[in-house]
């Protein structure tokens, strides 16, 4: 069902001052595979996301894309390699319009000399952004409205739409169902399935365990910056997953310390 190994991190760690946010985490993602990344608040999930997306440089460890070791100097490097990320809260610029956000960093330019000077093909981008968002289908706010005027759920839809429409290899979704109603959250799960069907590798982060159990192939549990369990989804049920997250169920790695 899942294809070859596309994205891998080995032993990455990241400190913020004295806080050890990630402590030797390793992860393998295959084409057409959905990994659930779970853990308590502050476990280090978003930190791992930022390392994977190139937003933060890890203090140690290695990153491999398609078997080649990479070192992301900036998110641009990861984006250009087909790794697309939805960040937990701060991924959109509120003053920009929906279409400006969708195309930010990948603008389309007017033809000819104006384009050479960086003049933007605004109408084209608005039309395409509208199409992209309608394909995503969660809620389609009109593409020329500033993001600051959207509801939380509409913003989330824009962020998801952007990530989904640009991803070519890997898509990382940090709590994409935040701010969404039950129906819209269901649509996000549908989007994840569609991405998987297209052969993308997906990393899905959520605190809603039934969603994680429903849509993933593997579940990786983080606790205090360490990966304490990494097993196929069928090895978990709601209770054992919760126990592993909170630590009431001891895992082999932790006992081994």
């Amino acid at each position, binding site marked *: 069902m899942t294809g070859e190994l596309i994205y891998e991190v080995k032993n990455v760690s990241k400190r913020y001052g004295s806080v050890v946010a990630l402590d030797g985490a390793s992860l393998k993602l295959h084409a057409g595979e959905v990994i659930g990344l779970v853990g308590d608040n502050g476990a280090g999930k978003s930190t791992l996301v930022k390392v994977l*997306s190139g*937003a933060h440089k890890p203090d140690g460890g290695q990153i491999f894309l398609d078997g080649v070791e990479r070192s992301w100097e*900036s*998110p*641009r490097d990861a*984006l*250009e390699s087909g790794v697309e*990320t939805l*960040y937990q809260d*701060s*991924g*959109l*610029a*509120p*003053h*920009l319009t929906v279409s*400006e*956000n969708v195309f*930010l*960093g*990948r*603008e389309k*330019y007017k033809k000819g000399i104006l384009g050479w*000077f*960086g*003049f*933007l093909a*605004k109408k084209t981008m608005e039309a395409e952004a509208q199409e992209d968002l309608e394909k995503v289908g969660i*809620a*389609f*706010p*009109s593409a020329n*409205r500033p993001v600051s*005027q959207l509801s939380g759920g*509409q913003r989330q839809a824009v962020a998801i739409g952007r990530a989904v429409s640009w991803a070519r290899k890997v898509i990382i979704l940090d709590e994409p169902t935040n701010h969404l109603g039950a129906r819209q959250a269901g649509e996000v799960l549908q989007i994840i399935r569609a991405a998987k069907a297209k052969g993308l590798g997906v990393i899905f982060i959520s605190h809603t365990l039934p969603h994680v159990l429903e849509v993933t192939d593997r579940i990786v549990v983080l606790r205090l910056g360490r990966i304490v369990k990494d097993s196929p989804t069928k090895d978990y049920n709601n209770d054992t997953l919760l126990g592993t997250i909170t630590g009431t169920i001891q895992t082999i790695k932790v006992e081994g310390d």
Partner: protein
Amino acid sequence: MTDSKLTSQGAPSGFNWKPLVTNQSTILVAVILLLAGVFSAGSYGSFWDVSVFNNILTDWGLIVLLAVGQTFVVISGGIDLSVGSTVSLSGVVAGVVMVNWMHLDLNVKNEAAIGPLLIALLVCIATGVAVGLLNAFLVNVVGIVPFIATLATLGGGAGLAIIWSGGMPLQGPNFYGLVNPIKIGEISLSPISFAVLVVAVVVTIAGLFLAKARFGLYTYAIGSNSFAAKAAGINVKRHLTWVYVVSGALSGIAGMYAYTRLGSGSPSSGAGLELQAIAAVVIGGTSLMGGSGKMLGTILGAFLLYEVQSGLLMVGMDPNWKQVIVAIMIAGAVGIQGFSFGQRRK
């Protein structure tokens, strides 16, 4: 989809008056016209005297050049306090180059001065770019907040301007015709001068780049949410470097503008102008929090600022009150912004 349509339309029927009233530029134009009416009533007709108006426009041009650069900086979430001292410094450096190095004096006049003045313009721009690069270095590499970084270059620039000029204006080649109204035969096109035309061209180009090009989009994006900008693949530090360099270069051009008016590089020609430039920007509706603002607003803001100052002088106000008036207008503009921001957040 129907939901978002309903909410975006707001009022169920009739004329949609909201965009008109909340549009900052509309309000500014209204205030400008109103004040013009007040000042020209009560027999202060001299407000519209052509030579007075020309002076206003010439003064205004200098501030507009600084305010245009400042608009980019403020939208990007920063501030550039060094613009005033860069005017002085670049004018002085141009004076040093022409007077001390090229040994030209004030007898090089009019058409004969064009060559040296062009060199002076390049020197001014280079000086401004150097200050901009230094600001960007302090902000991006050393990691000092823009307010303090540019406060430091403000002090340093003002000091160097005094040291290199010996504290006195350096009188050199001059061509006052560039700042006087253009004449076609006997007809004066007052208040339009060559210098004012240059400012108009600069403003138009800058306004287009801000509103329609990638340069402007990235400036808004960084000021709005610099993490999002970086996450979208924008090289934030490189863009901010450009923003400070643009502000520095425009300050250099403003330095040349001041030199042309005075016929000398004066170490005090830009003193206090940063306050005026920032005032024009915030009166024009640009948020000091970054992320929003318009070039048209800045131009109108600068005009309003000058109208008030000149109008009050004309009705007999002590000129020393000028700074106080500017300060009050800044506080007022920021206060109004804060108020409407608070409203929006609800």
